[in-house]
C-alpha cells in the first residue's frame, strides 16, 4: 500500500511537472541558501583558523602598552630591548624561541622601481616562530646578526613589485640612505588573519634596522613561541612576572605591556565567524518556512482540483487515513525532491563561491542531511492540513463537484 501510494504520488507530480517544479522552488531556494551559507561559513572559519595558525601556533605576542588602549595613549609605555628577549629566553622555562621585533615602514627602491613595505628587524628565530620557509637563498649568519650587516630577506610581494618575474637573489635594495643585499626570498604565506598581506615584508638583522633605519634601540614586539607540551597559562604568568620586574613596576601599578595568545585570538575569531554563519543560516531557514507555505498553498489547490477524484476514491472504499496518506506522501515527496535539488544547487553554488571568495570548500554531511530531513519535515507539516481536508470530504458532495 505504501509503495503503491508512493508511485501514485510520483505519478501525480509527473503529471503536473511545471506546477510541481514551481511548488518545489521555495524549498529548493531555502535548502540551497541554508546549505550554501553554512558550507561557506565553515570554510571561512577554517580559513581564519589556518591563517592564524600560519602566524604560528603556541605563540605569544608581547607588546608595550595596555591592551584595548586607544591608539596614542599606549605611546607612553616604554618599548622593549634586545636584552628583554635574552632574559626571557634564558630565565623562563617552557619556551622554544624568542624573537625581538623592530618594525617600521619605509620605501624600498630597487631595479628602478619603489615600493612601500614593512621593514622588520629581528633574528632567524623570527622565521622559525612565524613558520616561514625560504623559497630561495639563506637565513642570516651569526656574524651578520652580530654586526648588523647590510643584508635582507624579502617577502614574495616585495620581490614581485620590485623585480617582476626576475629573481631578487643577490640584488641590492636601497632603504633610506642604506643599501643592502638580498640574501634570501621568503616562501609566500598569503593573506593574514586580518586580511593583511603577510608577504609584504623585508626582514633585516635587528641591529641593522636599529642602527641604520630607526636610529634607536627600541624593540616594538617580542615574539615568544612556547615549547611543545608547556602550559600556556604558566608560561604567560612567569613571562608577565619577569617583564614586570625588568620594567620596575610596583605591585600597585598595572602592566604597561600586554601578552597576546594566538590561540585565544584564533578562538575569538573563529567564534565570530561561527556566529555569523549561524545568523545567516537562520535567515536562510526562514525562506525554507516560506517554501513550506508554498507547498501548502499548492496542495490545497491540488486537493480542490481533484475533489472528484477524491470522491471516487472514497466511494470505492478508500479509508480516510489512506486518502490522508496519499496527499501527505505527495507533499513529502515534493518537499524532499525540493530538498535534494536544493542540496545539488548548494553544492554547485558553494564550489563556485568558495573559489570566488578564496575560502576552502568543505563538504558538510551534517548540514546536508539535516536540511534534507528538515525539508521532508516541512512536507509533513504543511502537507497535513490539505491532506486532512481531502480525507474528510463527503464522497457524495465530492463526486458531484464540478
Amino acid at each position: 500500500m505504501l509503495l503503491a501510494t508512493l508511485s501514485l504520488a510520483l505519478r501525480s507530480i509527473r503529471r503536473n511537472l511545471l506546477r510541481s517544479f514551481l511548488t518545489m522552488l521555495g524549498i529548493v531556494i531555502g535548502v540551497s541558501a541554508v546549505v550554501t551559507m553554512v558550507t561557506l561559513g565553515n570554510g571561512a572559519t577554517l580559513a581564519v583558523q589556518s591563517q592564524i595558525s600560519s602566524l604560528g601556533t603556541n605563540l605569544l605576542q608581547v607588546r608595550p602598552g595596555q591592551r584595548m588602549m586607544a591608539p596614542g595613549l599606549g605611546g607612553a609605555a616604554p618599548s622593549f630591548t634586545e636584552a628583554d628577549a635574552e632574559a626571557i629566553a634564558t630565565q623562563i622555562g617552557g619556551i622554544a624561541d624568542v624573537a625581538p621585533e623592530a618594525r617600521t615602514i619605509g620605501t624600498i627602491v630597487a631595479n628602478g622601481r619603489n615600493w612601500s613595505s614593512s621593514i622588520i628587524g629581528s633574528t632567524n628565530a623570527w622565521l622559525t616562530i612565524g613558520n616561514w620557509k625560504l623559497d630561495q637563498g639563506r637565513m642570516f649568519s651569526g656574524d651578520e646578526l652580530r654586526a648588523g650587516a647590510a643584508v635582507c630577506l624579502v617577502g614574495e610581494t616585495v620581490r614581485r613589485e620590485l623585480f617582476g618575474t626576475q629573481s631578487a637573489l643577490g640584488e641590492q635594495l636601497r632603504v633610506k640612505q642604506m643599501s643592502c643585499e638580498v640574501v634570501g626570498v621568503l616562501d609566500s604565506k598569503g593573506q593574514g588573519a586580518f586580511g593583511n598581506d603577510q608577504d609584504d615584508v623585508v626582514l633585516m638583522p635587528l641591529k641593522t634596522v636599529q642602527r641604520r633605519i630607526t636610529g634607536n634601540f627600541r624593540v616594538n614586539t617580542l615574539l615568544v613561541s612556547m615549547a611543545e607540551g608547556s602550559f600556556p597559562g604558566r608560561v604567560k604568568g612567569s613571562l608577565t612576572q619577569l617583564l614586570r620586574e625588568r620594567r620596575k613596576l610596583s605591585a600597585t601599578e598595572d602592566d604597561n605591556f600586554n601578552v597576546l595568545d594566538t590561540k585565544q585570538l584564533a578562538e575569538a575569531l573563529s567564534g565570530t565567524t561561527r556566529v555569523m554563519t549561524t545568523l545567516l543560516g537562520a535567515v536562510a531557514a526562514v525562506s525554507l518556512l516560506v517554501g513550506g507555505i508554498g507547498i501548502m498553498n499548492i496542495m490545497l489547490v491540488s486537493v480542490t482540483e481533484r475533489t472528484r477524484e477524491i470522491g471516487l476514491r472514497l466511494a470505492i472504499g478508500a479509508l480516510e487515513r489512506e486518502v490522508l496518506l496519499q496527499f501527505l506522501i505527495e507533499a513529502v515527496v515534493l518537499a524532499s525532491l525540493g530538498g535534494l535539488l536544493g542540496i545539488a544547487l548548494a553544492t554547485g553554488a558553494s564550489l563556485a563561491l568558495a573559489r570566488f571568495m578564496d575560502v576552502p570548500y568543505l563538504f558538510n554531511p551534517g548540514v546536508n542531511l539535516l536540511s534534507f530531513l528538515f525539508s521532508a519535515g516541512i512536507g509533513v507539516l504543511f502537507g497535513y492540513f490539505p491532506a486532512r481536508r481531502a480525507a474528510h470530504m463527503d464522497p457524495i458532495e465530492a463526486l458531484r463537484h464540478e
Partner: protein
Amino acid sequence: MSEPSAIDMPLIRLRGVSKVYGEGSAALSALKGVDLDIEAGDFLAIMGPSGSGKSTAMNVLGCLDTPSAGEYLFQGVHVESLTRDQRARLRRRYLGFVFQGFHLLARTSARENVELPLLYRGEPAAARRAAASRALASVGLTGWEHHTPAELSGGQQQRVAIARAIVTEPAVLLADEPTGNLDSQRSREIMDLLRGLNADHGITVLMVTHEADMAAYARRIVRFVDGAVA
C-alpha cells in the same frame, strides 16, 4: 420479536428509512419512510422524477450516506450504525459503483483505472494487473488497456468504469444513470453488458434511470414519488 437470521434475510432490507437534510423550518425530507427488500441476484431499476428521492435512496443503498431514521440491513448488518471507515470497508468489499460521469482518473491508463479498487484492498501488483485485464476483457476492452480516458469514446469510458466496478467481484453493482451521457446505441451496449453481468455472474444490479427503455432491461422497477416508494 426475534431477529431473523441472515439466511432468511434478503440481501438488502430498508425499513422505514428516511433522510432529512437541514434542520428546523429549513429541513427537507428527501426520503419518507422507505421500505424496500432486494434479493441477491436481482436487477432493479429505480425510477422517478427529479426530487423524488431516488438519488438519495441510491446514496443510502450504496452506504455513501446514512439514513436519518430507520433501518438499513445489508446481509443482516445494520449499516446505519456503522462508522465512516466501517462503511468504506463494506463498500470496498461488497459494492461496485458506476456513475453517470464515468469518474475515471485523467491521464491514467484504462488498466490503472481498473486496478484502483484493488489498490485499496492491498492486492499485490501482479494480481492487480491480471484481475484488471480480466475485467477489461469481460467488458470487451481487450487491447485498450494502455489507453487513457481522453483516447476512449464515451461508451468505452463507461465500460472501463464498469470494469473498475466489477474487478473486485462485488455482490452489488450500483449504477447511477449509467447511460445518461451516452447516445442510444452506446446505451443499449452498456445495458446489455449490465444484464449480462447480472445474468451470467449473479451480480445484483441496482440502477437509477429516468429512461423507460433502459429500465426495461431490469427484472423489477421501483418508482419513487415524493420520497417514498410508489
